[in-house]
């Protein structure tokens, strides 16, 4: 997911930076006091997640967690992922500073998209909620791999070829991410429901207490 420096052309880099800047500004605007605390927490998780490598067959993948970030933060996923990527670039040499904008869009835009699409379903009990949270993790990575392909297309590669390569290459991450997101959501639901409820208008916790 992290595009290295020197791969993309200037127009793509600039477009990415502009969209990322807009997203970060809007995300910060929407972030309230409580949201800042969860943003710091989730950003830390995102920052560390890329270091956790899982070996699936010959492929080694690492967690992205953008679905989870979107689920918890909504639009604040933009500043969160931007911060995480900035520090990954500076401290671990993942991606690069010039590609920061593009990488932010590639990972944060799907995060916001899945949160808008699926957050109403997440709080449902039972199978529905579990499937929705799995879908959240799965689809976020899926959309990211498509955006990654779209960014790389301007380097002169064929979109169909690169999109297939990107989706197939990231398929293990999607599955792992889906299960991981479902697990974390079910854990948060029991232990720290406020983190998830800040997204949903109706508080289902109230019903349980009565």
């Amino acid at each position: 997911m992290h595009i290295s420096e020197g791969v993309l052309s200037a127009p793509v880099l600039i477009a990415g930076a502009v969209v990322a800047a807009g997203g970060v500004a809007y995300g910060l605007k929407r972030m309230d006091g409580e949201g800042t605390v969860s943003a710091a927490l989730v950003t830390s998780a995102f920052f560390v997640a890329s270091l956790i490598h899982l070996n699936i067959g010959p492929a080694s993948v690492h967690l992205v967690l953008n679905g989870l970030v979107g689920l918890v933060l909504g639009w604040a996923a933009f500043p969160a992922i931007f911060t995480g990527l900035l520090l990954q670039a500076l401290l671990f040499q993942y991606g690069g500073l010039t590609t920061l904008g593009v990488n932010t869009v590639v990972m944060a835009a799907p995060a916001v998209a899945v949160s808008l699409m699926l957050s109403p379903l997440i709080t449902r009990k039972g199978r529905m909620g579990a499937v929705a949270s799995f879908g959240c993790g799965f689809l976020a990575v899926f959309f990211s791999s498509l955006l990654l392909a779209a960014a790389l297309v301007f380097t002169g590669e064929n979109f169909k070829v690169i999109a297939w390569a990107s989706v197939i290459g990231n398929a293990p991450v999607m599955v792992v991410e889906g299960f991981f997101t479902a697990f974390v959501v079910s854990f948060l639901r029991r232990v720290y429901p406020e983190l998830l409820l800040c997204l949903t208008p109706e508080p289902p916790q109230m019903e349980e207490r009565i």
Partner: protein
Amino acid sequence: MKSLRFILLLGLFIALASPALAHRINIFALDEGGEVYTESTFAGKRPVKKGVIRVFNVEGTLVYTGQTDEKGICTFPRPEPGALTLEVDAGMGHKNSWALESSDPAVASNEPVLMPNDSAVVPPKTASVGGLSPADWKRMEQVVDTAVAKSLHQAREETRLQDIVGGIGYIVGFFGLFAWIRSRREAV
């Protein structure tokens, strides 16, 4: 039964998938007496298999193209003596480069130019010191340089705990600063 078959198929699919995924990529290169040795790895010291190696000279012309083997290694004779830029490309936006200094012909032809003041280390031109000829000394120096350069590079590429902890500290700091600025604005 059908779902089991589907899972098996998916598993096979995943097993065949290219390992060139979202990772940091590194290239390390050395000139071992006219032979350029390159080693390309992803984060966690996993080799870049079948990655493309491109070599550019100072003018930016492509002078060599090669491919890494199963161990991420690619060796080739130095195409020209000037400074070179070596680039590894694993596809999917994973690229990195390494600058190789020019192999100075003055240094290559007569050894004592290296360290004229350090008589203790550099042996006299003709006499053998400790049973070693000047050529042996030169070779030994090369070997030591190679080993040191390699281990220094590896140490730098490792993800260290203090970086992780420091990064989390920065995150908390950034968002804390943001919350503080916002609370001040709201208070005014």
